[in-house]
C-alpha cells in the first residue's frame, strides 16, 4: 500500500525550488536595474554629474579626461538653445 509519509518533504523541496527560482530571477532583474552599475543608478549618477557641472538638467556623458577648453564655444553651460544654458535670455529675438 502506498503511504503519504514523504509528501510533506517533497512539497517542501518543490516549494523551496520555486522560491529559489523566484529569488534568483528577481535578484538578476534587481541587479540590472538597481545594482551598482544598474540602469537606474547609472542614470541618476549621470544626471548628477551633468547637473553638478552645468547647473542645468541633462544626462549627457562627458569625459573629463578629454575636456579641451581651447576647442571653441562648446561648453554646454554657455552654448545651447533657449532654456538649455545657464543664462537667461529673451524667448524671442528683440525687434530690430
Amino acid at each position, binding site marked *: 500500500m502506498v503511504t503519504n509519509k514523504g509528501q510533506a518533504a517533497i512539497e517542501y523541496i518543490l516549494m523551496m525550488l520555486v522560491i529559489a527560482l523566484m529569488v534568483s530571477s528577481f535578484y538578476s532583474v534587481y541587479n540590472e536595474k538597481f545594482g*551598482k*552599475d544598474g540602469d537606474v543608478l*547609472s542614470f*541618476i*549618477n549621470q544626471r*548628477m*554629474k551633468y547637473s*553638478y*557641472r552645468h547647473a542645468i538638467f541633462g544626462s549627457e556623458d*562627458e*569625459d*573629463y*579626461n578629454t*575636456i579641451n*577648453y*581651447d576647442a*571653441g*564655444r562648446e*561648453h554646454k*553651460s*554657455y552654448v545651447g538653445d533657449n532654456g538649455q544654458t545657464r543664462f537667461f535670455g529673451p524667448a524671442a529675438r528683440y525687434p530690430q
Partner: protein
Amino acid sequence: MKNSGQITIEFILTFVFAILFVLFFLYYSINFATGYMAHYATYLASRAYLTGEYEGAAFNSDAPYRDGERKAREVFKEIGLEKMGLTFNLDTDLKFNSPQSVRVYEYVGAYFKFSPPFRISNDSDESKNKLLSESFLGKEPSKGDCECQIKKAMGYGNCLGGLPDVADVTLFDNGC
C-alpha cells in the same frame, strides 16, 4: 497556527526599506553638500586668480598668471575640502585656464576635478567617478600690461622703455 511572528517580520521588512530609503538620500545629500563646498572653493580660487599678482611682473609675461595660480591655491587650500571626504590632488586636479591658454575668454578661470565622498560610479575607470566644478571669472590685466596701455595712450609706443620726464600728460582711470 500562531501569528505571533507576523509583526516582527513586517517590522524587519519595513525597517530595511526605510533605512535604505534614508541612506539613499543621505548618500546623495552628502555628495551634493560637499559638492557645493567644492563649487565655493573653486569660486574663491577663481576670484584669487582674477586679481592675484605679485609686484614687479614684467609686461607681456606669464608671471601674473603663475602668481594668480599660486595665490588661488593658497586660498583653495584654506577651505580644507579633504576633511569633508573629497579625494583629489591639489596640484593636478585644480587647474587654471589663462588668457594665453584658451582662445575663448569666457573660459578663463579655475576648474577642479574631484571624487565625491561616496562613489557615483563603479566603473574601473576612475575618471567616471569624478565631478567637475568650474568658475570662470576671467583675469584682470597685469600691472605690466596696464603700464604698457598707459604708455601707448600717451603716445610712447615702446612698452619696455621708461617714460621721459619732459612730457606733461593727464591720465584718467581706464580700469587698470
